[in-house]
């Protein structure tokens, strides 16, 4: 298995970085090759706004996947918190497209519009209103009562953590199969 792999040190290195086992890395590598057509990198097919990488290589692929590993509950509390924070940071970056450390109203709106974009019957305006409502809610959770002149800049990472406090990221942000022997089902 991994022993005869030509780049076994790489694998070990990846193992250390991402926490996957070598079997899982093998599996994902196969998948990566399938997706990329045996190229070393996957090109971003969608012409998205700036901020999205145009190409990712296998290491990036693995890193992203590693965010979705289930949290090992046998770890001690501190590490669990750390893992949780890592996942939330990943999520935060998904919202925060310009990476300035704050989720502004605009970015939030974009996210909501994307979410509702598949539904042709909801106009842009309503998505916007929803985003606004959510933002206000977030502000009220994070900042409490505000002075009349205060403005709410955007959701920082700490605020984001606060919002997510009640919600269980451990159960939501993981992909089950990564725990076991994977069964590739290409369709």
């Amino acid at each position, binding site marked *: 298995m991994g022993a005869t792999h030509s780049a076994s040190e790489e694998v070990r290195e990846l193992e250390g970085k991402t926490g996957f086992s070598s079997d899982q890395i093998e599996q994902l590598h196969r998948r990566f090759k399938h997706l990329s057509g045996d190229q070393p990198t996957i090109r971003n097919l969608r012409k998205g706004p700036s901020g999205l990488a145009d190409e990712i290589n296998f290491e990036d692929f693995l890193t992203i996947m590693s965010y979705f590993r289930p949290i090992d509950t046998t770890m001690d509390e501190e590490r669990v918190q750390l893992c949780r924070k890592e996942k939330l940071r990943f*999520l935060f970056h998904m919202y925060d497209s310009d990476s300035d450390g704050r989720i502004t109203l605009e970015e939030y709106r974009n996210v909501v519009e994307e979410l509702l974009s598949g539904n042709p019957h909801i106009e842009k305006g*309503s998505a916007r209103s929803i985003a606004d409502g959510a933002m206000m809610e977030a502000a009220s959770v994070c900042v409490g009562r505000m002075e009349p002149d205060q403005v709410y800049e955007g959701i920082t990472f700490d605020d984001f953590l606060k919002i997510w406090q009640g919600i269980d990221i451990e159960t939501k942000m993981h992909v089950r199969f990564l725990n076991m022997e994977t069964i590739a089902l290409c369709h």
Partner: protein
Amino acid sequence: MGLQMLVPFGPWSWLFFLVALKCGGASSDLNESTNASPQHEPDVRFAAAGSEPAETVSVFALDYDYVQIPYEVTLWILLASLAKIGFHLSHRLPGLMPESCLLILVGALVGAIIFGTDHKSPPVMDSSIYFLYLLPPIVLEGGYFMPTRPFFENIGSILWWAGLGALINAFGIGLSLYLVCQVQAFGLSDVNLLHNLLFGSLISAVDPVAVLAVFEEARVNQQLYMMIFGEALLNDGISVVLYNILIAFTKMHKFEDIEPVDILAGCARFIIVGCGGVFFGVIFGFISAFITRFTQNISAIEPLIVFMFSYLSYLVAETLYLSGILAITACAVTMKKYVEENVSQTSYTTIKYFMKMLSSVSETLIFMFMGVSTVGKNHEWNWAFVCFTLAFCQIWRAISVFALFYISNQFRTFPFSIKDQCIIFYSGVRGAGSFSLAFLLPLSLFPRKKMFVTATLVVIYFTVFIQGITIGPLVRYLDVRKTNKKESINEELHTRLMDHLKAGIEDVCGQWSHYQVRDKFKKFDHKYLRKILIRENLPKSSIVSLYKKLEMKQAIEMAETGILSSTAFSMPHQAQRIQETKRLSPEDVESMRDILTHNMYQVRQRTLSYNKYNLKPQTSEKQAKEILIRRQNTFRESARKGHSLPWGKPAGTRNIRYLSFPYSRPQPAGRDVRVAEFTDHDGSDAEVPTIMFNTHSPTGSLQEGQRTQEIIPMKNLHRGGKPAHLGYQRNRAQEEQLGGGRRVVLRPKPLFHAVDEDFESGEESEEEASAIGSRWSAEHRPGRDLQGSHSPLLQSK
């Protein structure tokens, strides 16, 4: 002090009064009641009593026979309800024990009284009454209000646990008891293996009624609750099947030579019972959903359809010896999704409350009857049997819980901790189901039936009382994770995003998991099922429906409290401010309420979530536009006041206002809403944001073939106003734009321009927002050109 003490006594004295009546009724029922009349006749001696031929017209007479049955049923139900009221009025009791305990005690008390006065056994609950009338409403309610998503996410674990758990328990208890019976010293040697197995099967059944009653108080997290509830629902099928099979064996006297064929037939029977029940439930669910599609003109019978079809599914399943409980649960789950979209708002509320009422009544009756049945001569006490039964129940449950969960935890990404497993172990509360099954045992085949009944009762009492009372403290002690029911838009958004993310990642990694199953099911659902079953197919995102639900809640609160407050609570002296603002006059409140009830959003529960395979080319969503309009006005309003956040508390609490009113609003001058005069007021005041409503006026002022929706902006809500369709007939041109011609957007001119203009205004505000940099403040529209018209609601100050 004294008064508080009196209060709990009040219902108690009524209770005793009713009990006395009951006993009177019961005793006259037991005696021959033909000559009950003479003793109750008043002094007026006109009547001829008893056997004398009537020579004169009787002025007063008593006929108890005629009304006996409804009379007694009503008295029982009243007694149970009064017990419940008394229970809740007392301050200490609800924290101490679950309601079911108290009901059993009251029942036992009544039974004791009846027994004491008559020396006859009190009426025992008939098994057919339990299974046909009392059990279905409870299961229906449980199934209808069950959160389906966690259930289906955990379905594997639930099936594994419920199925195997019931089997292990039944056989384990039966076999162990058989071994105990072999011991000569206990005098139980005539109880053979089959009897013991049968007893094991009926005692291992966890009762959904009792479990729900016990867990009502102890709020545990949803996954745990799902496991417990799912087990209670599903193991009915198994234990009843087992019971029937073993009864059949006993009748056939075949216990000496049970062949493998029989065992295979038994296994096949399980599968048929389970799947058949579910199948019938689903069929009936679809039928009823289909029928509700056509009931828009007679919405009064919609609840009837829902209830009748559920009950029918139960009865049909029971006819075929399938699992009625599973059928009715499946029916409720299937029905709920589609029926909720089809029925009117009032029908929806009616269904909800009627269901709760029925199940509440059933539950109280069941527990009371159990209490009544304990007293009597149907018992035979055998120390060994009873004690060992109790011990083995607990032991085998522990074994099955820990063993089965150990295995299933290997396959779960989120395993159940030992604490959770302890709670699951502790949730094995037996109830009236076991009791009825014990009572159903034919005496001819089971000479020791009374002993079984006694043992069953002991187990029931033990689990309900001891476990019921201690489960709350246990949950707290073990610090099990609790539910957090926060309805917030953020949470919804994040959850939704997470779902997509996960589905995407799984897709990328080429895996097949239950998210994709769910996705595929939703695709199928949209393509075919909803076309057939839903009245008007309004695809809505769950985010939007939640949002609207929250907004509606606030609108209602606004109307009810009638408090005018501009952004007052973001100021330091919030309370003062609220006092200072003008109060609404009652008529205003009334008219506001009127408008609200007529013109509300049709907000539904979460019916479907966002699905990218949605293909419906239906008319566009008006409500979304309304939200936009309202939002913009809110922002405009708050911007005018100079702060970015008009409110400072999370959505869903009382103080959130989506309307902000200006400071110094004079008393509402009038309520006549006509298009005509729009007085101008100084530019500094706020355009009061409006609530846009959607109404399903049956005929409406617009003659459309189907339902119309009128969007009625309520500017300056405190002005009250008649339903705006009188005055706001404008922009009919909107119709075509909004597609389909089935909905009409009505907007008054002042604030709401045509559709494209709204967007335009939206864009402008965005530009402003971006112009101000990353500062997130509401759009500011000073001196917005209102085209010389304002809301008719604004009168002169």
